[in-house]
């Protein structure tokens, strides 16, 4: 058992635990905080996988933006949108069964391929774990410029859409458009 393996196991366990707590916490704020923990665990795993940049992006975007957004939304509307009642809906058992079956299937699928079990990581071609290559690829016309631009348009649309949808009703009608 190497150190990496242990680190992996611990991190994996923490992430999973946090994930379970996300879905099982009755209070939303707790769930949001557990989500942050889970996201952090994933960031660590990214580091383990030599995807440093992605790990940073994970922390900055997911934890720093999305999770914060969720917490903001929950906190700012807590009085208004306080949730009472059971955490799970009446047919949670069905969901559990489905998820377990899905899990079983996925596991069987994974274990079927012997290549996955044996492969160790192949050598990394670049020392900076492909960061400069990533940067170049994103703005290269022949490579991934288009998806990059489309993604930015998507973000713009989401931005505008979120504002439009979340606007209060009378303000939306007054403003017209």
């Amino acid at each position: 058992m190497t150190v990496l393996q242990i680190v992996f196991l611990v991190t994996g366990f923490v992430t999973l635990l946090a994930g379970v707590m996300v879905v099982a916490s009755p209070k939303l704020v707790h769930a949001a905080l557990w989500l942050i923990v889970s996201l952090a665990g994933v960031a660590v795993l990214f580091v383990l996988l030599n995807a440093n940049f992605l790990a940073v992006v994970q922390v900055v975007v997911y934890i720093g933006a999305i999770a914060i957004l969720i917490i903001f939304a929950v906190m700012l509307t807590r009085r208004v949108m306080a949730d009472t009642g059971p955490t799970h809906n009446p047919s949670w058992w069905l969901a559990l069964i489905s998820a377990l079956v899905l899990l079983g299937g996925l596991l069987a699928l994974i274990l079927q391929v012997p290549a996955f079990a044996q492969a160790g990581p192949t050598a990394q071609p670049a020392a900076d774990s492909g960061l400069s290559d990533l940067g170049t690829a994103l703005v290269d016309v022949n490579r991934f410029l288009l998806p990059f631009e489309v993604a930015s348009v998507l973000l713009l649309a989401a931005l505008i859409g979120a504002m439009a949808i979340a606007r209060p009703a009378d303000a939306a009608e007054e403003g017209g458009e």
Partner: protein
Amino acid sequence: MIPLSWYLILSALLFCVGTFGVLARRNAVGILMGIELMLNAVNLNLVAFWRYLTPGLIAGQVFTLIVFAVAASEASVGLALIISIYRRRSTVVADEINLMKW
């Protein structure tokens, strides 16, 4: 060394937890959190495959970046929707938002 299957199994577990959260939580924001978990599991899967199978091909990372962007936009729009629905229906319980039926 950590075999690939470990990462994949982990990612599968995380994904299923997220699925359970989506399917079972009453609160709409809780469902959104479940979705985030699922997306994270996917990202993990992608990066693991990139690292183990084609480290030279940067497409793996690019894919993951795009998924980030999508996740972000989806989270913001989703929250906006929840707020809007609450204004109309005075509830955030997914079960009670059931007008899309006969």
